């Protein structure tokens, strides 16, 4: 399918302030090149990410969503990422059950020193979403009044 190969997905990434955001920042300051498909939303903790944020991003035209936080044990708030992990696991299974390909909604642990890992994560997410194509299912369509 020709359109799929040209397809550049929109990825919304929720990054925790203390690890993943700093990790992405490090990738930037280290001049590590990674795909520009990601729109970053900084949150204070991955535990702040309400599953509705994911739903809402998909409704507003994201083709994929990434949630990223500190490695287990490293959370600035001690345990926010553990809660996020449970929530996300259920969310991921549920969306898959509704027919949303599992490549579209991902989670990762990226620490503040892992600029190189950030690049790999983004490449993996972007390639995964490219494989499955644009996400149309939940998209909110503009009403033409």
């Amino acid at each position, binding site marked *: 399918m020709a359109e799929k190969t040209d397809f550049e997905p929109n990825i919304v990434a929720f990054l925790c302030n203390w690890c993943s955001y700093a990790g992405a920042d490090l990738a930037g300051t280290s001049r590590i090149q990674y795909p520009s498909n990601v729109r970053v939303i900084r949150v204070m903790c991955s535990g702040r990410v309400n*599953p*509705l944020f994911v*739903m*809402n991003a998909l*409704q507003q035209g994201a083709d994929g969503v990434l949630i990223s936080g500190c490695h*287990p044990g490293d959370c600035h708030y001690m*345990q926010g990422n*553990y*809660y996020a*992990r*449970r*929530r996300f*696991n*259920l*969310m*991921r*299974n*549920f*969306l*898959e*059950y*509704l*027919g*949303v*390909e599992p490549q579209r909604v*991902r*989670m*990762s*642990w990226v620490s503040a020193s892992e600029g190189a890992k950030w690049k790999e*994560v983004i490449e*993996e*997410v972007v390639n995964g979403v490219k494989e*499955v194509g644009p996400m149309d*299912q*939940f*998209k*909110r*369509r503009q*009403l033409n009044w």
Partner: protein
Amino acid sequence: MVDVNKLREKAKEVVSRDDVRLLIGYRPGTYGFRARPAFVQGPDEADELIFTPACVNNLATYITLEEKLPVPRGQEPDLRKVAVMVKGCDSRALVQQMEEKAYDRDRILVLGIPCTGVVDMAKVEAKFPGVLQRGEIALEGDRFVLSFNGSKEEVPREELVADKCLRCRYPTPLVYDELLDEAVERFADDDYSDIAELEKRAAAEKWAYWEEKFSRCIRCYSCRNVCPMCYCEDCVLDRLQPQWMRRSVDISENTAYHVSRAYHLAGRCIQCGECQRVCPVDIPLMELNRKFYKDVEELYDYEPGTSVENPPLLSTFKVDDREDFIL
């Protein structure tokens, strides 16, 4: 099945108590085989109470509604107990509500009814269309006996019983102050075969299936309103700031609605089936709830509404929870 005279005697005794404000039970509906909730405030009203396989409602819902009543300024809230009749599945709603600390245990008085199954009214009405006079349903052995218009019909239990009863793990209430009958042994179990079948389909096929279902939703919110676990005073579905879901009835907003509703019940839904029962457009909501129910059991070995001591699933974690899906 509970002896109705004994039930009424007990009810009279209970509502006569000084520390009880109200008893919530069942009474015959106005037509057909239906039963409806009864709010008994005095001993004289207790004579209308019944318990039959037509008593499908989950009365635990009304407990939380009672909790929410606004108190006029200058008036003290009425802190007397609310008594409620519960079947096995309904009792789990109470357990889950208490697990979440929705109210104190001593605010309610629970009359437990060991249950052998209720009917699915849609199945009854398909079989006996247009019964307008009041009729009665009783379970005798493995057959439902339906009396109406002066005649009697017998139907095998499997034909009319609600689907949830075919996989009922807790027919005897898990919480009660008094049990109104002998405990019933577990007669069924849940193998989740319906969910497993859906899980196996291809992504596009799944979405086609759900798109058709969701597109039928008229967003009447009955499924939320009837749910005993949906008792937040400030519901995300009603919020305007931020507005998570627009009010328009289209596939995007409807999907958002269904994802939110089902997700908010993850690890909380106790499988009473009320949401699906009240849906006017027959959306199989239990297939959404049961997906979470299954996952929660498989992943976290957790069954909602079974122990008051259990902390709610999503407000706890284990350090070694699964994480092989994380990049």
